[in-house]
């Protein structure tokens, strides 16, 4: 079933897009991540122009995170104060991301920068996750109880002035730290089409030291609003949001997410995290190889 994408200006197989969204959706349901970090590279491998892939993937992440936010809200798992600070930082981040996008595009370096950022980000996060989950898998195997990580914020965070009390997160820290964190993920969302959950969650846990019960919900809350902001920003600047592409991705991903959520209940969390780490590292390695291999196309065209 072929479908014409009016913004990407090409025809794709709708089934492939739905399956791609579905596959990413299963993973996102299993791990509670938006899955943008897989959608964007996969779309690019499939032949969608990078800007359209990143813009439409961020639109898709919005839809993929809605029901999660509602679910966490019901459980009281969203710290709205913290989430609000992160969103404000994130919106400024998308603005900065748009400016960076424009500069890099005029220099012709946007693709390379997107690739390098993916390699660095996925490589480091995947490495950390693999290490952490391996330790806990080994500990579980040996029958030892897993030592709970000590909850404390990073000394840099603790030294920032103007402290606020974030009751639900159980924190008394300066809002500057989450503001900066939101800003950085906002840039990432704009450039890479990722929600940023897999940066946000570890940063919230290990940098800010937030209580684990509100981390995922608050991160989803931030992702929801920042991907909305980035869709708007892409619509206004790059004009690369393909609504048809986003809808087909969503049809797949919302279905896949439900399947993934059910699968996740049957699996041990340590193995689940190890599995996610493996996928993240695989994408990173594939992208790193892509930078070094001779590309299929040496030349690229840009309309003036």
């Amino acid at each position, binding site marked *: 079933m072929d*479908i014409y994408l009016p913004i990407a200006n090409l025809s794709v197989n709708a089934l492939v897009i739905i399956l791609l969204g579905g596959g990413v959706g299963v993973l996102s349901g299993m791990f509670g991540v938006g899955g943008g970090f897989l959608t964007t590279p996969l779309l690019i491998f499939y032949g969608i122009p990078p800007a359209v892939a990143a813009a439409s993937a961020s639109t898709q992440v919005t839809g993929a995170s809605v029901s999660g936010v509602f679910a966490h809200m019901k459980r009281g798992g969203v710290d709205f104060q913290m989430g609000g600070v992160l969103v404000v930082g994130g919106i400024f981040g998308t603005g900065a991301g748009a400016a960076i996008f424009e500069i890099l595009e005029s220099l012709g370096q946007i693709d390379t920068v997107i690739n390098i950022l993916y390699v660095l980000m996925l490589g480091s996060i995947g490495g950390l996750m693999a290490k952490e989950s391996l330790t806990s898998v080994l500990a579980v195997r040996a029958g030892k109880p897993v030592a709970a990580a000590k909850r404390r914020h990073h000394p840099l965070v603790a030294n920032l002035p103007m402290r606020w009390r974030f009751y639900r997160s159980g924190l008394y820290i300066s809002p500057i730290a989450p503001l900066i964190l939101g800003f950085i993920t906002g840039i990432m969302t704009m450039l890479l089409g990722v929600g940023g959950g897999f940066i946000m969650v570890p940063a919230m846990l290990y940098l800010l030291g937030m209580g684990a019960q509100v981390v995922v919900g608050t991160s989803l809350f931030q992702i929801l609003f920042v991907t909305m902001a980035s*869709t708007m920003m892409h*619509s206004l600047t790059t004009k690369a949001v393909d609504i048809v592409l986003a809808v087909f991705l969503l049809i797949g991903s919302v279905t896949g997410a439900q399947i993934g959520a059910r699968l996740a209940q049957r699996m041990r969390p340590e193995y689940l995290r190890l599995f996610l780490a493996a996928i993240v590292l695989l994408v990173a390695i594939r992208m790193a190889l892509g930078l070094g291999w001779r590309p299929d196309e040496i030349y*690229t065209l840009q309309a003036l």
Partner: protein
Amino acid sequence: MIRLFALLLFLLPMSASAQNVPKLVPDVSQRQINIQSGFTGAEMLLFGAIIYPRGVAPEGKVDVAVVLRGPARSVTLREKQKIAGIWVNADSSDFRSVPAYYAIASSRPLDQIVNSKTAAIYELGLDRLQLSPSGEVNAAEQRRFVDGLVDLNRRNGLFRQEAGTVEITDQVLYRARLNIPSSVPVGVYTAETLLIRDGRVIVADDNVEVRIRKTGFEQLVTVLAQDYALFYGAMAVLVSLLLGWFAGFVFNRL
């Protein structure tokens, strides 16, 4: 119609003075190609008749070449080079008039029917396109960029050159099929027909226009995205939110 009539009036004295020149009556299978949701590309038939003076076909073989050409545009071509172990865009070159689409079909290979000078004058063949490169003085380097541009477009299906695909019947009727990929840019295209004999272009006609445009929903989306960006962005967000919310709602009931 009035324009056509005016054109005929204008041409009449000329054709009267050039009694011995054959006339081409070219046409295409579609004057308009609509890009809709199921669009996977199109096949265009370029056909027509050759009308000889006094209705007599000359001795010896004639050849026909047909060209379908999209609107010209300015582009920057970037070239990747391996720097510090990774492939990055390094060099670039600007071209002022690159056709969005260019397909040529001929009854025999071009180098057998026209000499290189004629080919250059009429821009016959992918290696004869006048792309107006700018800013590059080094001829070898320019050649490399031109070759890169043509090769890229050829593999994307936007530049095509086919030999032996124009069928000529009884020296009078000709027809050729050209494929148009789904990634074809919109715009007004011109179909050109050239009658070639003894290495010379006897008559050329480029009066047939083909309009390629998006219609319906695809047109609406494009216009909204371009001209009503704020509204389009809000729509995209809303559609995404509703779809996500609705799916969550449905699956919770299951």
